[in-house]
């Protein structure tokens, strides 16, 4: 029982009588909150059955050597019992510092960090630039806006294939570069260019969300602040630095965090752009998927272990991010 106001009734529950016994407290709590629990019951059941239980089960799998050859399965009419066994933390040890750990985990890890940082930076700067342009009084502003959100409007799995046609050997981009007598990289085969292409496509897909969120943020900045700063003789740059950026801070901190989480977990773009043909351009999420479902035999245990590691990285990052924001007196919005 916390010192909180039950806003449905407006009653204050802070000043409580001497602590009753446990049984009575449970009964009392049940009577007071049964409808709250009843209302969250569906989501608790869904999350419990589909998130918490799989998470626990997945964690258990990471402590075993399960793969598709020793898991329980049915072939025709024969049911084969699971024969995988408990091996403790060996999967994690193997991933983090086993033989060839660099090729399997750390290279993907570094690339994932680079990918996230590069994409989110590009999303944010381009999105902010376009939002600033769209926030002026400009002829045809609505039309620009509608065209610029097209990459968000069309589902990713459709546009990625459009990009695949364009980037293919002999596709429009290389033909164009050839007419300019520029080198024509093998976008979908060479590792460096694969990574380049992946960042390019993801940037293209992700800018509209940032642009629209930041545009909403810009429009909510009080215009009297600009008037006041203009009266005080602030230059355009100073206005941007001292009025616009602070005004955008709460929106920015939210969309940057969302952007980081989404980009870190971005599955569709790399999976659809390269399929299995780019082992070195896989970020951790697609690599874990490849281990668990893209190869034979399917290595369920290692794939799940990658998943747990990914989640751990994200949770640690988010808690630091929140703490860092709170230090600057910023309440993180989500």
């Amino acid at each position, binding site marked *: 029982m916390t010192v909180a106001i039950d806003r449905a009734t407006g009653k204050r529950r802070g000043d409580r009588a001497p602590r009753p016994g446990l049984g009575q407290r449970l009964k009392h709590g049940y009577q007071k909150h049964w409808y709250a629990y009843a209302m969250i019951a569906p989501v608790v059941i869904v999350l419990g059955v589909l998130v918490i*239980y799989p998470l626990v089960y997945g964690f258990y799998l990471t402590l075993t050597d399960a793969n598709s050859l020793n898991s329980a399965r049915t072939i025709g009419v024969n049911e084969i019992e699971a024969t995988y066994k408990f091996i403790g933390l060996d999967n994690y040890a193997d991933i983090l510092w086993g033989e060839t750990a660099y090729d399997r985990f750390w290279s993907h890890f570094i690339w994932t960090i680079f990918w996230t940082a590069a994409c989110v930076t590009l999303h944010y700067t381009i999105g902010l630039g376009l939002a600033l342009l769209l926030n002026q009084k400009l002829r045809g502003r609505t039309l620009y806006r509608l065209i610029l959100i097209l990459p968000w409007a069309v589902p990713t799995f459709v546009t990625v294939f459009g990009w695949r046609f364009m980037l293919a050997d002999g596709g429009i981009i290389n033909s164009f570069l050839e007419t300019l007598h520029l080198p024509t990289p093998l976008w979908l085969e060479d590792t460096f260019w694969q990574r380049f292409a992946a960042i390019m496509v993801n940037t293209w897909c992700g800018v509209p969300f940032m642009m629209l969120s930041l545009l909403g943020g810009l429009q909510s900045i009080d215009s009297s602040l600009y008037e006041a700063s203009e009266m005080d003789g602030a230059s355009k740059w100073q206005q941007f630095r001292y009025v616009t950026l602070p005004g955008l801070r709460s929106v920015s901190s939210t969309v940057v965090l969302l952007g980081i*989480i989404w980009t870190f977990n971005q599955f*569709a773009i790399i999976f659809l752009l390269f399929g299995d043909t780019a082992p070195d351009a896989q970020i951790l999420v697609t690599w874990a998927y490849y281990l668990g479902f893209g190869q034979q035999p399917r290595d369920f245990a290692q794939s799940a272990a990658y998943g747990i590691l990914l989640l751990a990285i994200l949770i640690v990052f988010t808690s630091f991010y929140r703490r860092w924001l709170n230090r600057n007196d910023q309440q993180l*919005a989500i």
Partner: protein
Amino acid sequence: MSTTTVEAPVTKQDSTSTAPKKTRRRGENSRATSLVSHGILIVASLIALFPVAWLVFLSLGPDKDDYLHPGGIWSKMSLSNYSFVLKETKFFDWLLTTAVVTLGTTLIGVIIAATTGYAVSRMRFPGYKKFMWVLLVTQMFPVAVLMVPMYQILSDLQLIDTYPGLILVYCSTVVPYCAWLMKGYFDTIPFEIDEAGRVDGLSPFGTFARLILPLAKPGLAVAAFYSFLTAFGEVAFASTFMLSDTKYTFAVGLQTFVSEHDAQRNLMAATAVLIAIPISAFFYFVQKNLVTGLTAGGTKG
């Protein structure tokens, strides 16, 4: 006399060409700035538009290697790809799957998210903080975390390759975010309304169903749009859990054109366009609500 007549045009020129800052009103631009703005926006629009336009253009070329010789498409443009896709492929099976799965997810997800959002918006109960933390963390689950265990669980339950299986999986991904969204929206509805309902003798559920839900329609719509678009565009789970080719969603079906060793790019482009047109139209229809809803849910939380 003469000095004034000479000076006047000079200052005028100054104000338009060299020092426009002082005379123009706020929010108006000098000609140079607006030209540059237009230039950048036009380039950006072309970049945004081109890949999609190119896909539409390629879908009109009847041969599968036409994408290598785009110039040749002008002379033999036809809609043959579209008729082939509609008649010969499993397009309508995929449409059915996608419709069932996305609508099922939207319906179930929104109902669950609404009750949850209301509970966490209005009531403080023991376990509230932990619950909110779970909702927050669930939003950042990488697909890889749950993929393997979910696959095992669904195959134990015989739900692999069925609609309910995929709908349940999608619900687990959309519900946490929608619940946050709905909480943000419910927070904007005054508590006095609840109190009035309670005073007039409604039960907590009655207050929710009869008073608050009708008021929260815009928020519900945003949650529904979000669920719909998310479920429609999801690739990873659909690729793994749907095995028979009549039960592919569009996201999976589209991949079949190239994953066979004979890449039928023209058909793929046509299918992509057929998929993209209705969903993009829908997106444009709701985008304004969606953006305000998403950021409002984000900033109020």
